[in-house]
C-alpha cells in the first residue's frame, strides 16, 4: 500500500538514548514552588497603580445592538473608565484559510461586539475600576438594548439558514470541504457483504483549565512597550495579534506567561479579552488586570467538541473494511478562532478519519457551521476523540452484523506494516497498532473480565478503542490545511554562563506538561551535565524571536528537538574552543559526559566547561580566531512530511446500574506508544489526565443551550466535572517505537488519553447493553438512557 509518489520520512535522526537523564522519573523542577504556594500565576501579579477590568456581556444569543449606555457605569463608585467598541476602535480578529469561496467563508471576530451580538456572554464593553468588586458594580449599571433575532442553536436551524449568524455565511456554513473521494467508493458499497451506518454525536464541552483565563497588561514608557502578562499557550501569537489589532509595531508589544493552571487547548487561541485589556492599559498608561470568573469561563470562554459524524462503511464477509463514506458536521459556535480558523476540526477529521485501519476507498465531506453559541477552540485531541469514536463504533457494529468478535475485526483491519501511506495520502511512521491491541485484550482476558461478564450476573461490558495520534505537526502538515498562518517550526537558544550553568529557551509553553524538567533532561544528556544545572525559560517573547507555543502534543517532538540541536551545537562550540586550548585537532576531542571536554588520544588532558567558559567570556583573547566570544547556540526544528504518530489501545470494563443507569468503570487499561519516554511518570500523568477528561466527555460533561441560545450550565452545579470518586485508577503499559525523525526518538503524549477514552467507554457501555438491543452513539451517555435500556423487556 505504500505509495511511491509521496514523501517518505527523511533520514533517521534518532540514535538511541544518550546519557543518564532521559528515561528517568527525576524530581520535577516545577514542584518545589508549586507545592509551597510560591508559584506565580497571572492573578498573583499585582502592579503599582493597577486597575481591574471586567466585561459587559451579551444577555441574549442573537440580536442587533440598538444602544450601549455606559453613563451609569461611569459614575459608579470606584469605576475609572468604561469603553465600548466605538471608544476603542480596534481591529478585528480574522483567521483565514487560503481556500476558494465555495469552501471557506472568512468572518471577523470584533474585540468588542458593536452592532450585533452572536452568543450569550459576548463582550460588549470593558469596565475599568479600582478593584474587582467595583468592576462588578459597574457592569451591573450598564444598559444594553437589543433587537432580538432568532437564534441558531443546532445543525437543523443552522442549515435552514433563515437566521444567519454572519450575513456573509449563507446557510451558516463557514467551511465545506470534500477532501477525498477516491476511486471505488460506490463500487465497494455495491459489492459489500455488510454495510453499516452509524451516526455518532459528541456534546459540547469545556476544556476547563482549573485556572480561568486572565491577563495583566501594563505600559512601560522606558521600554516604549506594552507588557502583556497572560496565561496563554501561544505567547507569540498573542503578541502578533495584539500588535495587529492595536495597529502598532510588534516590537512595542511584549508577551510574558507566568505559571499556568492548565490550558488543554482553550488557551491556544488568542482571546479577544487579552487584546481589549492590552488596549486599555495602553490607553490609560496604567496596569490593568482581568481575571475571568467561572461563569464567564463556562459560558463565554472557548468551548469545544460538538460534532456529528454520519458514517457509512462497507465490509466484506471476512470483516475487512472496503470503503468509508463520512459526513462530518462541527458546530463551531459564533466565530472562527485565531490562528486555526473554524476549519480546524472538520479538516483534521477529514484528513485522518481512516485512523489506524487499512481503508481502501474513502469519501469525506467536512463542514464547519456557525451558531449562536460561544466559539470553540481546539480542545485536547481536537476532532480525534470524535472521529475515533465514529470509526470505533463502525468496527463494533460491523462485528455485530458479521457475528465476529469486535477485537478480531479490528485486528483484521489494523495497519501492521510501516511506513504506511493511506487512502488519505498521509504516511504513518512505525507504531504498535496491533501490538497495543493484543496486549490490551490479553490483559483484560487474563484478569478474568470476560469470564465475569459472560457469567451474566451483572451488567458488565468490555470496550476497546484503538487509535493513533499525529503529534508532530510540522509546517508541511499544517500547510496542507491551507492556513494562511502556518505553525510548525520551533526555535531554541542555549547559553552557558561562566559557572558552566545553562539557560535554554523554547518557543513551546509549559502549562502542566513538565517542560522545565523534561527539556532539562534532554539538554543535560546532550551536554553531559547535571540536570540541576539546566534552566528552561519559556513564555517571554523578548527572549526568543518566534515560537508556536504548546498545542497538538508538539512540545517534545518539535520543541524538544530544537533544544537538542541547540545543545549539540553548543557542545560543538565547547569542543572547538577546548581543542584550541589543548592545542590539538578538533576531531581529537569530545564531550566527556561529565561537564568537560576530553582529549581522545590522551584522556588525562581535559578541560571543564567552567574552564572553557572562563576563556569564552573573561579571557577572550585566548579564543581561536574564528570563534566569537560567549557560549551560545541557536537551532530551529520542524517535523518533515506528514509528521509522527503516537498510538494506543484503551480497554475498559464498565458496570451499568439497572436502577439508576449510572455507569461505573471497574477497570481501565491503557497500552500506549509515544516513542522514547523522556520521563515515565510525566507520560503516565499525561495519559491518566487525558483519560479523565475523555471519561468526563463520555459520561458527564455537556454545555447545553435552550432554543433561544441561553446556556444552561453556568456553574459547576450544572456542568458536571468528575471528581476522584468518578475517575478510576488506570493501568498503563508502554510500548516503545522510537520516532526516526525527531531528535530524541520521542513522539508526543499530551492528547492520547483524551482521544481514546470516549470511544472505549461508549463501546463498553454498549457491550453492557448488548442483550437489550439498544445501541448508543452519543456522548455524554446519560444515566436515564442506560436505565431505560436496561428496563426494556
Amino acid at each position, binding site marked *: 500500500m505504500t505509495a511511491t509518489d509521496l514523501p517518505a520520512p527523511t533520514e533517521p535522526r534518532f540514535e538511541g538514548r544518550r546519557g543518564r537523564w532521559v528515561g528517568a522519573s527525576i524530581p520535577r523542577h516545577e514542584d518545589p514552588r508549586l507545592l509551597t504556594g510560591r508559584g506565580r500565576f497571572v492573578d498573583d501579579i499585582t502592579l503599582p497603580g493597577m486597575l481591574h477590568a471586567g466585561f459587559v456581556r451579551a444577555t441574549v444569543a442573537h440580536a442587533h445592538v440598538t444602544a450601549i449606555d455606559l453613563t451609569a457605569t461611569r459614575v459608579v463608585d470606584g469605576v475609572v473608565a468604561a469603553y465600548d467598541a466605538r471608544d476603542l476602535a480596534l481591529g478585528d480578529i480574522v483567521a483565514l484559510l487560503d481556500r476558494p469561496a465555495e469552501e471557506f467563508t472568512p468572518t471577523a471576530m470584533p474585540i468588542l461586539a458593536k452592532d450585533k451580538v452572536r452568543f450569550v456572554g459576548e463582550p460588549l464593553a470593558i469596565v475599568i475600576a479600582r478593584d474587582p468588586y467595583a468592576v462588578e458594580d459597574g457592569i451591573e449599571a450598564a444598559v444594553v438594548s437589543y433587537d432580538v433575532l432568532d437564534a441558531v442553536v443546532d445543525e437543523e436551524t443552522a442549515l435552514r439558514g433563515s437566521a444567519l449568524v454572519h450575513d456573509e455565511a449563507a446557510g451558516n456554513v463557514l467551511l465545506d470541504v470534500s477532501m477525498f473521494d477516491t476511486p471505488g467508493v460506490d463500487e465497494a458499497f455495491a459489492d459489500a457483504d455488510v454495510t453499516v451506518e452509524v451516526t455518532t454525536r459528541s456534546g459540547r464541552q469545556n476544556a476547563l483549565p482549573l*485556572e480561568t483565563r486572565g491577563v495583566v497588561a501594563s505600559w512601560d514608557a522606558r521600554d516604549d512597550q506594552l507588557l502583556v502578562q497572560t496565561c496563554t499557550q501561544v505567547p507569540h501569537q498573542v503578541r502578533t495579534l495584539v500588535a495587529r489589532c492595536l495597529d502598532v509595531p510588534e516590537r512595542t508589544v511584549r508577551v510574558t506567561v507566568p505559571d499556568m493552571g492548565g490550558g488543554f487547548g482553550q488557551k491556544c487561541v488568542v482571546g479577544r479579552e487579552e487584546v481589549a485589556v492590552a488596549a486599555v492599559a495602553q490607553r490609560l498608561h496604567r496596569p490593568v488586570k482581568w481575571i475571568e470568573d467561572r461563569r464567564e469561563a463556562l459560558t463565554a470562554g472557548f468551548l469545544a467538541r460538538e460534532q456529528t459524524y454520519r458514517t457509512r462503511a462497507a465490509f466484506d464477509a471476512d470483516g475487512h473494511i472496503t470503503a468509508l463514506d463520512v459526513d462530518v458536521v462541527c458546530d463551531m459556535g459564533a466565530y472562527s478562532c485565531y490562528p486555526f480558523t473554524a476549519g480546524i476540526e472538520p479538516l483534521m477529521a477529514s484528513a485522518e478519519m481512516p485512523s489506524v485501519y487499512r481503508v481502501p476507498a474513502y469519501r469525506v465531506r467536512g463542514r464547519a457551521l456557525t451558531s449562536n453559541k460561544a466559539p470553540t477552540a481546539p480542545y485536547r485531541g481536537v476532532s480525534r476523540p470524535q472521529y475515533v469514536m465514529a470509526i470505533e463504533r463502525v468496527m463494533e457494529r460491523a462485528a455485530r452484523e458479521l457475528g465476529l468478535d469486535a477485537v478480531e475485526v479490528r485486528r483484521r483491519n489494523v495497519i501492521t506494516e510501516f511506513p504506511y501511506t493511506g487512502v488519505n495520502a498521509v504516511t504513518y511512521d512505525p507504531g504498535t497498532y496491533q501490538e497495543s491491541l493484543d496486549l490490551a485484550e490479553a490483559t483484560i482476558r487474563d484478569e478474568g473480565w470476560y469470564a465475569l461478564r459472560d457469567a451474566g450476573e451483572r451488567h458488565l461490558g468490555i470496550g476497546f478503542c484503538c487509535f493513533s495520534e499525529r503529534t508532530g505537526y510540522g509546517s508541511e502538515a499544517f500547510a496542507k490545511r491551507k492556513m494562511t498562518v502556518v505553525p510548525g517550526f520551533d526555535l531554541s537558544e542555549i547559553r552557558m554562563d561562566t559557572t558552566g550553568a545553562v539557560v535554554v529557551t523554547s518557543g513551546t509553553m509549559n502549562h*502542566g506538561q513538565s517542560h522545565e524538567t523534561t527539556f532539562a533532561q534532554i539538554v543535560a544528556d546532550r551536554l553531559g551535565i547535571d540536570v540541576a544545572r539546566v534552566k528552561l525559560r519559556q513564555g517571554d517573547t523578548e527572549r526568543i524571536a518566534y515560537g508556536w507555543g504548546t498545542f497538538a502534543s508538539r512540545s517534545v517532538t518539535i520543541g524538544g528537538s530544537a533544544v537538542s540541536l541547540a545543545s549539540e551545537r553548543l557542545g560543538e562550540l565547547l569542543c572547538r574552543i577546548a581543542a584550541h586550548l589543548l592545542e590539538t585537532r578538533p576531531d581529537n576531542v569530545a564531550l566527556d559526559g561529565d561537564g568537560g571536554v576530553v582529549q581522545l588520544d590522551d584522556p588525562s588532558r581535559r578541560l571543564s566547561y567552567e574552564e572553557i567558559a572562563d576563556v569564552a567570556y573573561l579571557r577572550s583573547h585566548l579564543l581561536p580566531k574564528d570563534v566569537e566570544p560567549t557560549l551560545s547556540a541557536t537551532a530551529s526544528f520542524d517535523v518533515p512530511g506528514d509528521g509522527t504518530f503516537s498510538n494506543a489501545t484503551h480497554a475498559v470494563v464498565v458496570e451499568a446500574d439497572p436502577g439508576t443507569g449510572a455507569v461505573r468503570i471497574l477497570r481501565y487499561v491503557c497500552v500506549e506508544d509515544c516513542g522514547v519516554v523522556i520521563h515515565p511518570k510525566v507520560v503516565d500523568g499525561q495519559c491518566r489526565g487525558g483519560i479523565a477528561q475523555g471519561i468526563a466527555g463520555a459520561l458527564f460533561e455537556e454545555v447545553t443551550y435552550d432554543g433561544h441560545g441561553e446556556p444552561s450550565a453556568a456553574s459547576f452545579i450544572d456542568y458536571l466535572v468528575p471528581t476522584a470518586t468518578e475517575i478510576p485508577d488506570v493501568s498503563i503499559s508502554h510500548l516503545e517505537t522510537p520516532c526516526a525523525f525527531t531528535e530524541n526518538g520521542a513522539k508526543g503524549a499530551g492528547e492520547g488519553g483524551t482521544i481514546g477514552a470516549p470511544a472505549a467507554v461508549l463501546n463498553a457501555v454498549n457491550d453492557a447493553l448488548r442483550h437489550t438491543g439498544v445501541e448508543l452513539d452519543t456522548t455524554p451517555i446519560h444515566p436515564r438512557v442506560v436505565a431505560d435500556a436496561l428496563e426494556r423487556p
Partner: protein
Amino acid sequence: MNDPHLLTLTVNGTEEEVVVEPRRTLADVLRHDLRLTGTHVGCEHGVCGACTVLMDDAPVRACLVFAVQAEGADVRTVESLDTDGALSDLQQAFADHHSLQCGFCTPGFLMLAEGVLAESPDADREEIREGLSANLCRCTGYQTIVDAVHATACARRSQEVPS
C-alpha cells in the same frame, strides 16, 4: 453596608490587621491584602476547592467565607506547610507520586488532605478517595493524588508512638 471594617485575623500563626469591606471574601484577603497567593481561586462558588484553607483545623472554601467571619479563627494556608522551603511529608509525597501537573489545584488539595488526615487518621485508600472528592483537579485524573495522601497516612500511622 460597604463601610470598611478593621479586622484582626490569625493566619499561619501570625496576627494580621486588615481593613475590608464586609463583602470581601477570605480568599481575596489572603491573596490580595496579605499577599499569600498560594491559595488559589478556581470557581468562586464553593465547588472546585482550589481555595481550600484550614479554619480551626477544618477545611473550608475561602471563596465562601467572608473575611469578617474568620475573625478569631486560626487560619492556615499552604504557605504554612513547608519549613523554610523544606517540604512537609505530604508535600514530598505529592512530589514523589507526581500528584500535580499545572499545580493550580495543588494548594487546595494539600489543605484538604491535611483536614482529611486530621479528621480520619486511620482512613484507608477508598475513604481517602472519598474525602478528596471534595475538590477538582483537571490534570492528573486524581489517582496519584490519592496515592500520595494514602502514602502519607500510612507513613504517619507507622510513626505513631504506641500509647
